[in-house]
C-alpha cells in the first residue's frame, strides 16, 4: 500500500519551453491533418499568433517535469504496474509555440479500491505562461495494479 504521507507532495515549479518543432512532431504523431497545428501561415490565417498547442499537450509538457516518475519512485511503485486512469483539462487560455509554461504538480489524493488490489494516485497541476497567465489546470489519475 502506498503511504498516505505522500498526499500533498508537491513538485517544485519547473518551466518548459513549447518548441515549434515539438508541436509539429506531435501533430504528425497523432495524425492531426488540420494545418493550423503544423503550418505557421495556416495558423495565422486562422487567427492564431502562431502554431497553437493541441488540447492534450499540457499533459506531455508536464511530463517533462518528471513529476510522475519522481512521485511513483518516491512511493515505491514500479513503472510496470501503472495504468492511466483518467485525465482532465480545464482550459483558461491558449498555449502557443514559443511559450514558456511553468508547471506545479501536487499529489492531491491517494486511495485504494478492491481491498487494495487497485490504488489510485491523483495529481493536480497548474500551468502558467511567461506572462503569468494560468493557461490550463490538469488532473491526472494513475492506477496502480497491485
Amino acid at each position, binding site marked *: 500500500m502506498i503511504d498516505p504521507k505522500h498526499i500533498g507532495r508537491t513538485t517544485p515549479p519547473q518551466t518548459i519551453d513549447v518548441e515549434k518543432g*515539438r508541436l509539429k*512532431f*506531435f501533430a*504528425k*504523431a*497523432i*495524425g*492531426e491533418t*488540420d494545418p493550423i497545428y503544423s503550418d505557421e501561415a495556416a495558423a495565422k490565417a*486562422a487567427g492564431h499568433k502562431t502554431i*497553437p498547442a*493541441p*488540447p*492534450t499537450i499540457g*499533459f*506531455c*509538457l508536464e*511530463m*517533462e517535469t518528471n513529476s510522475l516518475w519522481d512521485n511513483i519512485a518516491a512511493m515505491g511503485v*514500479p*513503472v*510496470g*504496474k*501503472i*495504468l*492511466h*486512469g*483518467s*485525465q*482532465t*483539462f*480545464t*482550459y483558461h487560455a*491558449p498555449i502557443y509555440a514559443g511559450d514558456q509554461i511553468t508547471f506545479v504538480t501536487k499529489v492531491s489524493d491517494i486511495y485504494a479500491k478492491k481491498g487494495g488490489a487497485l490504488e489510485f494516485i491523483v495529481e493536480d497541476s497548474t500551468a502558467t505562461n511567461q506572462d503569468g497567465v494560468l493557461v490550463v489546470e490538469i488532473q491526472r489519475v494513475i492506477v496502480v495494479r497491485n
Partner: protein
Amino acid sequence: MAPSYADINVGDEPIRLETDPISRTTLALYCGASGDHNPMHIDIDYAKAAGEKDVFAHGMLVMAYLGRSVTSWVPQTALRSFNTRFTAITRIGEKIICTGKVVEKKEVDGEKRVKVELLATNEKGESKAAGEAVVALS
C-alpha cells in the same frame, strides 16, 4: 467555422473520427513526440517482463484522437474543458473510432456552452475511453 449554438440540439451526434490501425510505429512516434517514454508502450521485452503479452497504446494517444475529433468540429479556442476516463487497454492493430453526442446546452459565466459526451471504441465497438468536452459557442 464554429457551428452556431442555436443550430445545436441535445441528442445531436456531430463528431466522428476513425483512425488508422495503431502500429508499433504509431507508438514509437507518439513516445518521442509526447515525451511519455514509459517503456511499456515501446519495448516488448519490458512489457513481457512486466507480465504483459505485448506493448500497448498510451491512453493519452487515444485522448489525443478524441481531441482531434473535437477540434475538427469546433475551433480549439472554443474548448473549455475536456476529460477522459480510460476504460480498457488499446492494443496494437486496433483502430480507434471517436464519437460524440450533445448532452447539454446551458449558459455559464455569460457564455453559451455545449457539453458533448465522448466515446472512443475499437472497430468492434468495445469502449477504450469515455469522457466529456465542454465548448463555448456564439
